[in-house]
């Protein structure tokens, strides 16, 4: 399991023969990894391959059952995240973990604030150091602002500033780009390159293959908890990498079927929510997949939430199959045949501690009823039916959904809504944080649904996904619809131009 370029400097951090089990689940089996200074190393694998467990082992959250963690060649044992941090290892997690009530400055320096006499915190120095970090990152976040209400992109910036603040030698980035826009990704990569040039070792995780090829030098691939390969990216193709990750050839990632659109299923007219989005009008026809693109914070998710009735709108109207929807009433939206698969599956899409069966059953609480009582048998067969149709990978249908990988959780959310037999399906970031294999399955599913006559509105920050799947692309910019681009004219350039406000609508 050595890698071919052993001639360089010694690894700053290494894992040797690491195994880790949770109960009966073997999350990691005999995995080895070496991180060198001045190198960005990609960690690739499908969801559930063991990437998260590996990161948590490096971060001192998990202790391996067997195997060693080597820091500068010497074995170390991390008793907690504090130990790993003191060793110069910084982790930027997929879901930023900030303190919402505290200021950005406090978030960055929590536990290691500059001190004055008698161990008192030097608030002034904390503020100034934070301002300096923000300047270095080229962002204008106020250090005294509370973290509550920050966009995911900004939260991510705070996390990166935190890592920079303790001059981390090893930076582990767990899908840092999943919620970032193009320009934010470019900014992040600028920072990563600088860190690399200064001799930091970076472990980079992303499901966007093009990013791996853009920023990384070497890649380690995991599959089902086992080490598959560690090799330079030079000379590799995306197909090579995918083959190592999934262990088979990947069918087409964007299996879009050509469909002739039918009558209008969803009609949104002059929808406005004050301060959030303004004068948004569009139609989605049966059989159509309409992509809704735009930068994070452009108001896409907010429009979807208002259409579904989670948030109230201030003006405008929404019709499904010609039926006007009531403002702020998800139950009438559901009754009219609307389904919304939300952006944040853990917080909004699933009840994490409930079983797969019950989660899928949630949308059927009014239909799977016998004599006024829940019909458990009907609920189970309905759930099983959909779990099988969507090929959810699980041990038992009664297992809680938090035991599933991200991709399978997303399938459960989809199953939950498809079980309602929707006429209009709104999916918000349907493949964020999902591995390539599952991504292709989700795409095929959406395409099949459209072919069956469902109107699909797909919000996505993943441009290739929008371009590959959508019949039409709607682009939002600062709360307004900036452009409507037919499939034939949609390119990365046209969409991004509209999203950044460079092109007139």
């Amino acid at each position, binding site marked *: 399991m050595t890698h071919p370029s052993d001639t360089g400097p010694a690894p700053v951090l290494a894992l040797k023969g690491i195994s880790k089990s949770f109960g009966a689940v073997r999350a990691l089996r005999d995995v080895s990894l070496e991180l060198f200074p001045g190198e960005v190393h990609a960690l690739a694998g499908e969801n559930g391959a063991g990437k998260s467990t590996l990161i948590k082992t490096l971060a001192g959250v998990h202790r391996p059952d067997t195997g060693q963690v080597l820091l500068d060649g010497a074995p170390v044992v991390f008793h907690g*995240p504090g130990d790993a941090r003191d060793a110069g290892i910084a982790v930027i997690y997929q879901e930023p973990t900030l*303190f919402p009530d505290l200021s950005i400055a*406090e978030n960055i320096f929590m536990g290691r604030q500059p001190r004055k006499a008698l161990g008192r*915190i030097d608030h002034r120095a904390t503020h100034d150091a934070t301002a300096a970090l923000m300047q270095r990152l080229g962002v*204008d976040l106020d250090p005294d602002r509370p973290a509550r*209400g920050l966009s995911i992109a900004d939260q991510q910036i705070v996390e990166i500033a935190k890592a920079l603040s303790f001059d981390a030698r090893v930076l582990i980035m767990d899908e840092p780009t999943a919620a970032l826009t193009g320009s934010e990704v470019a900014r992040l990569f600028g920072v990563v390159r600088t860190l690399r040039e200064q001799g930091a070792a970076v472990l980079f995780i992303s499901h966007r293959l093009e990013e791996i090829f853009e920023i990384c030098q070497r890649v380690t691939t995991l599959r089902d908890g086992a080490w598959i390969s560690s090799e330079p990216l030079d000379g590799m193709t995306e197909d090579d990498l995918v083959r190592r990750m999934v262990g088979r050839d990947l069918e087409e990632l964007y299996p879009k079927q050509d469909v002739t659109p039918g009558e209008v299923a969803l009609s949104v007219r002059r929808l406005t929510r004050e*301060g*959030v989005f303004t004068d948004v009008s569009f139609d989605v026809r049966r059989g159509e997949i309409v992509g809704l693109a735009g930068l994070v914070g452009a108001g896409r998710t907010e429009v979807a939430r208002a259409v579904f009735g989670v948030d109230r709108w201030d003006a405008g109207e929404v019709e499904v199959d010609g039926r006007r929807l009531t403002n702020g009433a998800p139950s009438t939206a559901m009754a009219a045949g609307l389904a919304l698969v939300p952006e944040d599956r853990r917080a909004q899409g699933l009840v994490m501690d409930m079983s797969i069966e019950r989660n899928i059953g949630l949308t059927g609480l009014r239909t799977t009823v016998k004599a006024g009582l829940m019909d458990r048998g009907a609920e189970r067969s309905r759930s099983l039916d959909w779990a099988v149709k969507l090929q959810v990978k699980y041990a038992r249908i009664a297992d809680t959904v938090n035991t599933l990988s991200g991709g399978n959780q997303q399938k459960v959310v989809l199953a939950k809504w498809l079980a309602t037999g929707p006429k209009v399906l709104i999916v918000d970031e349907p493949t964020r944080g999902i591995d390539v294999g599952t991504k292709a399955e989700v795409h095929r599913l959406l395409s099949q649904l459209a072919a069956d006559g469902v109107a699909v509105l797909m919000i996505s920050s993943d441009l290739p996904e929008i371009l590959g799947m959508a019949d039409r692309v709607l682009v939002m910019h*600062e709360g307004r619809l900036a452009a409507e681009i037919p499939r034939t004219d949609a390119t990365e350039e046209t969409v991004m131009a509209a999203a950044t406000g460079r092109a007139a609508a």
Partner: protein
Amino acid sequence: MTVAAPEEAPVAEAPKAGATRLVDRVFKMRELAILVVFLVMIAVTQAGNSEFLSEQGIKDLLLNATILVLVATGQSLVVITRNVDLSVGSTLGISAFAAGVYLQDGGNPVVAIALAVLLGIGFGLLNGLLVSLGQVPALVVTLGTMYIIRGIDSIWVGSRQITAADLPGGFVDFGSGGISAVPYLALIALAVLVATAYYLKHFGSGRELYALGSNPEAARLAGIPVRKRILAAYTFCGALAGLAGALYLARFGNVDSGTGNGYELTVVSAVVVGGVIFTGGSGSVYGAALGALLLTSVNSVLPALGVSSVWVLAINGILLILAIAVDRIVALRVALALKKRNARHA
């Protein structure tokens, strides 16, 4: 390490700073609002009864608030960590009785106070250990210890009673004396309050209490010793409940097995009215102290205005619900304001 500062660096500084100021103002306003309500209430009462703000009147107001302020200060620390301590009333009662028994036998008042504080620390440690190690919700654990401590108290005290006549004269004088209108006891409470507020703002471990209440998972990942901090918060809360017990004895001179019964709910009300958010991470001990002052003043205001004191509880309840409603509305407004700023500058 220098990262080339990209083009957009200096854009839109002013509006963001504006958002921050708005948020700042709102949170400062929260304490200010209680103060205003308090002052208006006092002014109205004074207008209706000019005797109200006599020297003795002011002294009574402060004396009544003192003990609640102390216990609320301790409780705030626990609530900030997203926990609660329901056993403070029982701890106060048993500490007061222990100090009384010791003084009755001719003990030294300073030692008596130390004894009460130590007893409080003991019960605080017990609560802290159960909550931090047992991973059981604090509400349930401290409900249990509340009954246990009260039970021990009842068995030990039985039908005995300590009265002012059993206590050294100096101790009782200390309890009711003061510098003109300011009682000694209030000065002690004020000193504890200021020291605690200073600690929370200026010391790392103090800020960590806010951090772990705000997001426990993030606190763990940031390497904050979560259990140790929770243990410390409970111990401090217990210590203040013990101290409050000793001061209760000095103030009233009268302790039996029912002393402090039901007090925990008054304390929690004061803390919440004072703007310490029950879900942790936010609020100040000054707010809690103002909440305590407001709630205890209602007790004095109603009789002064000739209103029956049966209204006290109902009014306390209304204040509590009003406070929570205000917090909720303010939180929504602030979130919306921040979101709008974000939307415009994303």
